């Protein structure tokens, strides 16, 4: 399942199990997950609801703790949320009282960078995501796609090494989604990011990922780890793309 590699992984999930107490019962959200991610990889977690993909992502982010097993970043245990692992939420999580620029500068400012440097960072990343005209707008004045650009930019402006994305484009219309997918790939390549991306859309996973990790519910677990070698940009109408789509569909349906 995993490629054996001598390279030290940026993220190492080792035998991680997560249990929740729910109505006096213990529910296993994730059982025995193992996942190694190397720096620069774009990995998609895919699976139906209840497969533990968001739970896994939130544990890597440090919002939840593992019941068993180890979560390591650069071989050090993850202890709570931190700026090295930036998160992009489906519902954006922008600060409504801050302008686009100040939202993007929130991280550097929170970490005590000098104001002049924060302003320069804001400007650079506002430009990177193409929102210069909206730098002084407030989140409620933006479209969903623009909000998500701000959410991505604030994580990048904070020099996050790993970008965690929880169905970030799930609430967007199809055209905006495709454009943001392309922009994300561009940024990922240019900035040499490591991306862990949760989705339930097979096509999105194949368009984006180096590796697609397939998960299954009851209890949540990893059932497959597929490498995608089709060169980018990937054509969703090509035979290789379709073959992969069929293969992932059947993995998701449990015929493996």
């Amino acid at each position, binding site marked *: 399942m995993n490629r054996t590699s001598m390279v030290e992984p940026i993220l190492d999930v080792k035998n991680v199990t997560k249990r929740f107490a729910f109505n006096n019962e213990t529910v296993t959200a994730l059982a025995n997950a193992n996942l190694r991610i190397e720096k620069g990889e774009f990995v998609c977690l895919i699976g139906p609801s209840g497969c533990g993909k968001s739970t896994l992502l939130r544990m890597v982010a440090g919002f939840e703790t593992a019941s068993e097993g180890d979560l390591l970043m650069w071989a050090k245990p993850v202890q709570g949320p931190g700026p090295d692992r930036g*998160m992009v939420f489906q519902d954006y999580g922008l*600060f409504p009282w801050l302008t686009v620029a100040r939202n993007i500068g929130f991280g550097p400012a929170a970490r005590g960078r000098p104001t002049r440097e924060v302003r320069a960072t804001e400007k650079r990343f506002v430009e990177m995501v193409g929102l210069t005209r909206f730098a002084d707008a407030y989140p*409620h004045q933006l479209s969903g796609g623009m909000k998500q650009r701000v959410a991505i930019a604030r994580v990048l402006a904070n020099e996050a090494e790993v970008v965690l994305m929880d169905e970030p484009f799930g609430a967007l219309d199809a055209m905006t989604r495709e454009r943001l997918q392309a922009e994300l790939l561009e940024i990922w390549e240019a900035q040499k990011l490591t991306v862990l991306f949760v989705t339930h859309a097979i096509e999105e996973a194949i368009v984006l990922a180096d590796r697609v990790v397939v998960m299954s519910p009851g209890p949540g677990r990893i059932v497959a780890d597929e490498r995608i070698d089709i060169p980018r940009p990937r054509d969703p109408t090509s035979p290789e793309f379709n073959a992969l789509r069929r293969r992932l569909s059947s993995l998701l349906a449990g015929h493996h």
Partner: protein
Amino acid sequence: MTQHSAWRGPALAAAFPLLALVAWHLATSGRAYSLIPPPYEVGLELWDLAFGGIYDDAFSETLQTHALASMSRAYGGFALAAAVALPLGMLIGRVEVIRTMLDPTLQLLRPVPVTAWLPLAMIVFGLGPRSAFFLVFLGAFYPVLINTIFGVRSVEPRLFEAAAMLGLSPSASFTKVVLPASLPSIFTGLRLGLGLSWVVIVVGEMTGVQTGLGAIIMEARQLSRTDIVICGMAVIGVLGFASDKLIMLLGQWLLRWSPQHG
């Protein structure tokens, strides 16, 4: 948006009080024994209260003194209420021990009307402005407190997650997340509190103070000077309306980021 003249709003808003004025005039004018004076007599009295020169009685030219006295009590009581209720509400909202300790008592005291506090206030603070001040404080206190508690408790959990993953320390999250996020509720509380401090001003000035719009209303009532009673009511209405407009403008500027306000 349909096209409307800029005057449509003000014209519509003025139509109703004008109609009421006409009805008032028709119902009271030319009747010798009407207990309610007709509008033009009230208008004359208002002029006399403000500038004198018509009746030149004990009330002439006293309006400014009374209005200033009431304003200082309304704003002073409100300011004190805000100064106590804002920090207390934040503590109750964010600190579980303090909430458990104080919330039940405050909830128990809250339904007691300001009027019911009047006798006790007069015993504790004596006859005069201190009792009035206390009663206005009490009237403004609960709306500020309740809305502050609600505001700091209902911050979206997602915003704490976002702040934490961006590297904000937990100790900074109060000023950087909780305060700005709860500002709309806090502002609603302040607006309600300021409005209520005008509402309770008459009760507050029933404590035997010599000046104040509430005081002249009570005095005029004993003298059956209903024209002065109505003048006092009108001035309270106008001053309360003006201070609400002011705080609304402040709110629109402070909350320009909020789709519900800005």
